[in-house]
């Protein structure tokens, strides 16, 4: 009541805060309707029963030696798929990033960049955006038809999506860092690639490596998903066990998969501390 008597003491931001909260709810509502968001169906007996039966099958996880050997082999295949995919992606990403980085432009050293290099840089950027805007799952579906079932399709899919992704982010990292060292080298007459190796790369190496390792970790997770469309590895094995409703096999593979992701996470965290 004091606020009514003294309008100066009322929070002036209050009304706009209420407005934006209501607006957010109003915007969210049609989306919930559109996505048929009805979480209570999860708890209806008709859907609860088969779910519980499937989850109940998870215990005990299958630990036969022969099966574990097969899981280990497929896990290794998944890691190999991710690593090979990232290696191929680098072949794509590094040249694209170098082509699109403004810091390495000689004509932009003094004044505006020339027209031709400027167009080339824009086109390269678009190419990377196209590559990365198609999810690796879609690329995998395409290449499973081209090269047949198996990890090759997965490797190519990861290489294409991650090539665009890494290239775009590499370019962003290189542009956002301190350009002083690179520009000094270019000003003193070094070539673009020399300026890259002696200025730009040492300036940003740690951040580039850190991002690459993080993406490698993502690639391991996504290569498991790619297995579901027939690209081999742990995912494909999990897919066939799911179709057979073999809960104990799925449980073992989920545990292995979680351990794998945890290991990749640890490895990349360790690498990042080494970069300091």
């Amino acid at each position, binding site marked *: 009541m004091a606020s009514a008597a003294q309008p100066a003491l009322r929070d002036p931001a209050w009304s706009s805060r209420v407005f934006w909260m209501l607006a957010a709810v109003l915007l969210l509502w049609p989306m919930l309707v559109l996505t048929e968001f009805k979480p209570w169906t999860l708890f209806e007996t008709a859907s609860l029963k088969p779910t519980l039966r499937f989850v109940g099958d998870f215990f005990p996880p299958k630990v036969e030696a022969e099966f574990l050997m097969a899981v280990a082999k497929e896990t290794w295949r998944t890691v190999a798929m991710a690593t090979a995919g990232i290696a191929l992606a680098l072949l794509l990403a590094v040249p694209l990033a170098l082509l699109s980085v403004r810091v390495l432009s*000689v*004509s932009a*050293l*003094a*004044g505006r960049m*020339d027209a031709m290099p400027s167009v080339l840089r824009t086109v390269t950027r678009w190419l990377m955006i196209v590559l990365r805007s198609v999810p690796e799952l879609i690329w995998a579906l395409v290449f499973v038809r081209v090269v047949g079932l198996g990890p090759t399709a997965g490797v190519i899919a990861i290489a294409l999506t991650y090539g665009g992704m890494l290239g775009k*982010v590499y370019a*962003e*990292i290189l542009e956002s860092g301190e350009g*002083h*060292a690179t*520009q*000094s*080298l270019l*000003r*003193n*007459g*070094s*070539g673009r*690639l*020399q*300026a890259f*190796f*002696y*200025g730009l790369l*040492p*300036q940003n*190496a*740690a*951040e580039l*490596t*850190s*991002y690459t390792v*993080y993406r490698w970790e993502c690639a391991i997770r996504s290569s498991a998903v790619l297995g579901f469309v027939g690209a081999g590895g742990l995912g494909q094995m999990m897919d066939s066990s799911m179709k057979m409703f073999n809960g104990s096999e799925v449980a073992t593979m989920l545990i292995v998969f979680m351990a794998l992701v945890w290991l990749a996470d640890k490895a990349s965290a360790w690498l*990042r*501390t080494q*970069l*300091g």
Partner: protein
Amino acid sequence: MRGITLDVAAGEHVAIIGPSGAGKTTLLHALACALRPSAGSVQLGGRDPWALPRADLQALRAQLFLAPQVPPLPPRQRVITAVLAGRLPNQSLLASLKSLFYPNDIPLADAALARFDLSEKLFERVDRLSGGERQRVGLARALASDAKLLLVDEPLSALDPTRAVQAITTLTQVAHEKAATLVTSLHHVEMALQHFPRIVGMRGGEVAFDLPAAQVTPQLLQELYAQHLHELTGPAPEAIDITAAPALPVVMHCR
């Protein structure tokens, strides 16, 4: 900058002095073909660099060396690599890549560093050096280069008086040995008068005087530094703090 006419003969040693904001750095950048003059022209060896095709301009830039006030050293680079980077314009790309794998001219880098008492830092990382050491590494790079025109911006801003004398003596000596032209901007007026035969005084983007060192009178200096007298008498202000921050753990980016 307005109405500047400056003629520097090959092999000459020139010091540019003047209060902060007088345009010393801009002038050096214009001489280094780093800035394109909006009016007027720059001629190097009788040629207008901005009329040259891009490749020829880069070839011309290879013959001059601009050492900026803040040494352009990437934090994780080693001193030897930073010094040998001065040789890049004279090397093929392949040779410079090989040099990253195994430094191709360790004696050259060592000799350049030895003139600044930095031999023992040869294989250190740049970010483990003090501000003054970094500045001297920047100067050692200038020594390693093969440039015929050395343009050095405030080489003494992070150095103590003894090191400053050593640095400026070394720079002038090396320029003599290489028969290179040396143009330096300096905050230390005394140092400029002692070590350079020709002094250019700048003020407000114009050349106030351009005289042999012997003819620069205290009165001229008083006029040049009017309203900035503390810069004439006091120590050189450290324009930028160039002490390297210790390397932090790398941040992970999720994008």
